[in-house]
């Protein structure tokens, strides 16, 4: 169906304008000389300079990165295991409950997840801090990872794995040498997704953070509540730039990986 009409051109233009203009305005005004965020007073990078001297923000950024790296790595391991169990596990006792618990966090309101985890940490007497945020983030992002990884596991040819087993691999070797390389792009995008979810999360982190473990979203939220500030614009611009570079390069890498895999499979079939 190829009907490129004026209507389509207009709706795409308006749609993407709606998606991108707010962020463009934000970025432009991070270079504003004036403290007033809505009046242009000339180009300046002074807010970036002030941001780099604001220790509260730098500390929060450091906490956020630590939490994101730890939780996304743990979530990738657990989520890949869960995906493997769901797709290849066959029947086992409590399977329905297991798949329910994998999908439920995806639709759970953040306020409920945050509240319930906080009440758990208090009930077992765990001091709140970086560790509790990592536990919380791992729990909800492992579910996203498992969805991403299981969609890849479903679509790949199981006989390759069986061949490896027949040729004398142990199940673990078969996983490491055959399955993992094939699903690796999905595992990587699962990790990236978990990483961004963790960087982004305000609500669950607010419930599970202690007084000494403020993350960047918590810090941004508390200063933004008082109104718009050019420093936050500068910070947002940096974050948008990092994400844009990350997503675009990740998609280029995975495109190349998929193309290479397709080529290798073709060659293998021909041979």
């Amino acid at each position, binding site marked *: 169906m190829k009907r490129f009409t004026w209507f389509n051109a207009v709706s795409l233009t308006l749609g993407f304008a709606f998606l991108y203009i707010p962020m463009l305005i934000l970025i432009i005004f991070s270079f504003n000389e004036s403290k007033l965020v809505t009046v242009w007073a000339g180009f300046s990078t002074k807010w970036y300079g002030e941001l780099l001297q604001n220790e509260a923000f730098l500390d929060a950024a450091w906490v956020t990165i630590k939490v994101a790296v730890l939780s996304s790595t743990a979530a990738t391991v657990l989520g890949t295991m869960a995906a493997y169990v769901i797709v290849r596990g066959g029947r086992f006792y409590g399977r329905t409950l*297991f798949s329910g618990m994998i999908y439920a*966090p995806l639709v759970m309101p953040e306020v409920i997840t945050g509240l319930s985890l906080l009440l758990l940490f208090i009930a077992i007497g765990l001091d709140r801090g970086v560790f509790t945020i990592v536990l919380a983030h791992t729990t909800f992002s492992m579910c996203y990872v498992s969805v991403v990884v299981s969609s890849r596991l479903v679509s790949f040819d199981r006989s390759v794995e069986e061949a490896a087993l027949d040729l004398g691999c142990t199940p673990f070797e078969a996983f490491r040498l055959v399955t993992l390389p094939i699903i690796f792009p999905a595992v990587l995008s699962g990790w990236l997704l978990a990483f961004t979810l963790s960087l982004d999360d305000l609500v669950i982190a607010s419930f599970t953070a202690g007084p000494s473990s403020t993350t960047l979203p918590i810090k941004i939220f508390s200063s933004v509540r008082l109104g718009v500030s050019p420093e936050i614009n500068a910070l947002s611009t940096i974050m948008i730039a990092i994400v844009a570079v990350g997503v675009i390069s990740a998609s280029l890498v995975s495109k190349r990986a998929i193309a290479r895999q397709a080529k290798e499979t073709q060659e293998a079939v021909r041979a």
Partner: protein
Amino acid sequence: MRAGKSFLILVPYLWLLALFLVPFGIVFKISLSDTALAIPPYMPTLDLSAGWAGVREFLSELDFENYVFLTEDDLYFKAYMSSLGIAIVSTLLTLMVGYPIAYGMANASERFRPMLMMLVILPFWTSFLIRVYAWMGILSNEGFLNQFLLWTGIISDPLVIMNTNTAVYIGIVYTYLPFMVLPIYATLEKLDGSLLEAAEDLGCGRIEAFWRVTVPLSRPGALAGSFLVFIPALGEFVIPSLLGGSSTLMIGKVLWEEFFSNRDWPVASAVAVVLLMILIVPIILFQRNQQAAQEADK
């Protein structure tokens, strides 16, 4: 081999039991407790050292008082109703904004489609908080929208949008738009163009063919997108607290304030349990829709 498999199952299983299911049990239990001036601020607490008698006494002190309280104070009823209203209106608005974008993408030349997909997904990867924040500078009384409209002469007095429900609608449509566009695009892309040609050969006009062929066939995608917007919008906290005003009642915000400002944990827990019960209906409908769509694919 068997040991390996059990290990593979047990680790994520136990993790989710301990950090997902057990916490809900605790929320439910606390929702049946009473508020107390203590640490933690609720009564009773389970005293296992007293053995069975302690457990029985603990159970006898639990009741549904907090749920009765939710029905007596009409703040909660109003908050649930207004959350439902806001979630429904903004879901419909997102559908109206998202459908034409998805339609345009599906009809674009194949060369451009991956790039358009990327452009829709990219905002989803950028911080949610930043995307909401971006609107604060646009919608305020001296913000860009008002500056622009005053400059063009369309209005003579600034519009009050910030801190109203309108701002909340805009925020929800903006942040959840990718969730609506992608499922609709997925169904439209698969749509068989010859069906439209057939409809036109049989005397349908272009617009009629769109309503009678394209729209019904893209319904699963539109439904999936609507649920993906509606479900998180219902419990939304960030958008109403940054863009909404003091009169914007949403249940996520009420729960937050009950917990952090009033420090009333039992009532906050009861609010959470009721919110979850309200969400079960759309979640089940969503899963049915997904299953039906999957079977149709086979």
